[in-house]
């Protein structure tokens, strides 16, 4: 087998050196009743060419050839071949967690650069080396706020991504946290009066997302004031990180939980991506996840090490700030390389292109009879449209024209069954936008 570098005679020689007559002897400590007598019933073995063919067949059974207007936390942005070239280098791809700093300086320095980039983007003072994804980053931020404030009530915006809220609920249930949701207003932003009424001295944190799930930008300074008026912490989740290229970062937030998938990671049917937590320096010892810190070696050369490890599970065990061990290092590296390639001007231009495409799409769709844009708040590259009929039925029609249409909101927001979320990034050609508008017009003209 091509992955096993031993010949028959080498195996024999090794068995002889051990003093065993057969390999089975080495498994003698496993009771016989638990040792398999037959090979497992598994597909294969396949050669490299057959493996490729197997996956190509499955790949052909997905959505190649369709144009998708889906966003909702996973964004189709341009990716550079340069990023992939770096990611495919064996020294990055096949290296381990950088616990042995002397032979992991490549990983450690790139983590340090990632942490810096995240701070620059979010306006926060420190950032970690990545969490699993944006939703677990948001959850870990909430747990962090609980530790810092020693309070147990958390106010969560209904405009926070529904799956983030579900994940938070799963974790919170067993930790005695009280999660309460607060409403949004007609602008599509959170209802500040409702939030003001809800915040009290028992509130550990207020959690919002910006741009929110409807694509609308939240008024972060005003929300921060409301939270801070009762010494609650403000957590801001960022699902579409490209927005930060032109949108003012949430500097008033105490903790930012960001998903970096937009920077160089393919959608890949759900993952892997890389979430990250950024916060104020005074909170760093309560922040979960790995941290790369700068230091010097004996000869005074600059180098980098994992630091503040005593927060982590391998030292603190049951008192750890989190149970996270494996993170998303390679994905964070993709983000790092991608952001360095984009640079200051590229990031801004990318964000401007997204804004332009989305506004153009909204204008074209608004011209379709029966379509309206229900929210008045400012939006970046996603927006909600309202149809005169079920979004699902319209989407069935669009699908026949090889368009994956707006994401129906009804499953998560029962009050919005005729609304759907449209996302348009820089990758969407104008012709496809025009085709969507035309196809939607046709879909809505069909008899019910």
């Amino acid at each position, binding site marked *: *087998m091509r*992955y096993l570098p031993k010949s028959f005679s080498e195996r024999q020689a*090794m068995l002889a050196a*051990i003093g065993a007559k057969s390999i089975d002897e*080495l*498994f003698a*400590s496993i009771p016989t009743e638990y040792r*398999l007598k037959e*090979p*497992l019933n598994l*597909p294969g*073995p396949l050669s490299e060419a057959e493996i490729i063919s197997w996956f*190509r067949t*499955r790949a052909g059974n*997905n959505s190649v050839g*369709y144009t998708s207007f*889906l966003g909702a936390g*996973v964004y189709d942005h341009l990716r*550079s071949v340069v990023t992939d070239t770096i990611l495919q*280098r064996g*020294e990055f791809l*096949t*290296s*381990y967690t950088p616990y042995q*700093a002397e032979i*992991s*300086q490549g990983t450690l320095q*790139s983590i*340090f650069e990632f*942490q*810096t980039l995240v*701070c*620059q983007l979010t306006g926060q*003072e*420190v*950032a970690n080396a990545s969490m*699993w994804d944006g*939703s*677990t980053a948001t959850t870990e931020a909430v747990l962090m706020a609980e530790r810092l404030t020693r309070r147990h009530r958390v106010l969560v915006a209904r405009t926070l991504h529904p799956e983030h809220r579900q994940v938070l609920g*799963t974790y919170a249930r067993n930790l*005695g946290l009280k999660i309460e949701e607060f409403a949004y207003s007609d602008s599509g932003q959170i209802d500040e009066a409702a939030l003001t009424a809800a915040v009290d001295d028992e509130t550990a944190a207020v959690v919002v997302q910006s741009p929110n799930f409807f694509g609308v930008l939240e008024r972060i300074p005003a929300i921060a004031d409301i939270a801070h008026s009762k010494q609650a912490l403000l957590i801001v989740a960022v699902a579409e990180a490209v927005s930060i290229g032109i949108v003012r970062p949430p500097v008033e937030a105490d903790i930012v939980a960001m998903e970096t998938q937009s920077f160089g990671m393919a959608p890949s*049917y759900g*993952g*892997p991506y890389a979430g990250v937590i950024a916060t104020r320096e005074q909170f760093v010892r309560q922040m979960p996840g790995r941290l790369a810190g700068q*230091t010097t070696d004996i000869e005074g050369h600059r180098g980098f*090490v994992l630091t503040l490890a005593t927060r982590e*599970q*391998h030292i603190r*065990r*049951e008192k*750890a700030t989190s149970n996270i061990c*494996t993170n998303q*290092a*390679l994905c964070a590296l993709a983000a790092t390389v991608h952001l*360095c390639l984009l640079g200051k001007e*590229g990031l801004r231009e990318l964000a*401007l292109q997204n*804004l332009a495409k989305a506004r153009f799409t909204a204008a074209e769709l608004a011209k379709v009879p029966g379509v309206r844009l229900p929210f008045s708040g400012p939006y970046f590259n996603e927006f909600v449209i309202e149809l005169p009929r079920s979004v699902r039925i319209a989407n069935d029609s669009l699908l026949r024209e090889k368009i*994956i249409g707006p994401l129906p909101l009804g*499953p998560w927001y029962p009050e919005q069954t005729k609304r759907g979320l449209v996302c348009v990034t820089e990758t969407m050609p104008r012709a496809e936008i025009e085709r969507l508008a035309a196809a939607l017009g046709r879909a809505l003209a069909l008899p019910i």
Partner: protein
Amino acid sequence: MNDKIKKARRHVSQNEGLIFEKSAPGKRGIELPPLDVPAVDPSAAFGAEFVRDSVFGFPEVSEVEVLRHFTRLSTWNYAIDLGMYPLGSCTMKYNPRVNEFVARLDGIATEHPFQPQTVSHGCLEIMRTLQNCLLEITGMDACTLQPSAGAQGELTGLLLIRAYLESKGDARRKILIPDSAHGTNPATAVIAGYEVENIRSDSNGQIDVEALKQEVQDDVAALMLTNPSTLGVFEPRIGEIADILHQRGALLYMDGANMNALAGVSRPGDFGVDVMHLNLHKTFSTPHGGGGPGAGPVLVKRILEPFLPVPVLVEKNGQPVLEVHRHTSIGRLRAFGSNFGVLVRALAYILAYGPGIRQATEDAVLNSNYIRKRLKDVYDLPYESTSIHEVVFSDARQKKNGVNTMDIAKRLIDYGFHPYTTAFPLIVPGALMIEPTESESKEECDLFVDAMRAIAEEAATNPDLVKTAPHSTRVSRLDEVAAARKPILRWKP
């Protein structure tokens, strides 16, 4: 050489600074296609209060500088592609490149988790095939591919246990965890809302079954076990252990980190495990990438199936389908389904072996026992019990000259290897935890043994050489104390 000239450093090591230190205004590495729709002014679109200036301090470099920068950085890393990582319980095996290729295919890398299931049959079939393979390998009844890593798999498993016990009327309070366990086990138990009770290993490094009988009271929800243990030893009385728990209505959780000792040879479902996780980035070859991503699928016996996290992959009319709502489910552990890209890689690995996966396990065990045999005369072996795919020595002999496991590990770097796992498991003071995996040739194993024997000799005759190692790396030992006292966690202009 003139040290004042910035580039004056040994060729292979390069004096590469931070990317921010190379910036100059106006440089960029990506050029976008021109906009084909009218441009929009953000102030006009949002209002000035929502607009930012450009990102202060952000890098401005060309494509060639970015490529060179990260290529240079990469050369400072050790990697499996270069040689062995004998890290215990990490299973640092070869990361097959065809896995990378298939994960990048159009139609796989491009799929959106919210797209209709009708245009996702290929993805669902990949998940179903992987699920079935993992069930066959572990001998369990049902599976979730959702967890992002082993630790999240552990949390999922404990939440499933809690849900099951709640359905029986009492979630109970405690999780029993051996003192030899990986730190994620107790950390996870706390997040699942349980108390941790540490149970001591016996003099063989195994579970003290008589003590266990006393420990398992009606307030114990489960025992979290790694089998084989972190010493590489298979629990000989595992069947009894499972019975003791089951008789008291408690469950057996297995941390599957050491599955590389068992795949194709023995199945946890057969020896009484109720719920377990696997680490796809260990046993199933998905790349570590400097610390992740991984995936930690969880496999369960039938009794826990109703509680699996949503979405659950089920079969409807012979087709794999995601069931998004299930009122008995513990809920969702992460957004967007799973680390699908990692799942693809793991499946490609399994397909390469098929039923022959047993050979990989046998080779891993052969390598480990070979190294054990050839080092036990120079390093102290604290436990005589048979070890399977990994072996744990201690630094007891070398300590007499003031040389400890960390020093030996650092000196091993000078011989061209990555260190083994130092100072874990906690039950062995000064531990050297070694797992070679099946990817190592006899030649590599021999080189490793020779290096370790040489270091043992040095520890006896020239201890300072070992204590000040490594000597051959780009940076020497780094000041971790300063890094922790006054942390510098980002670049500032």
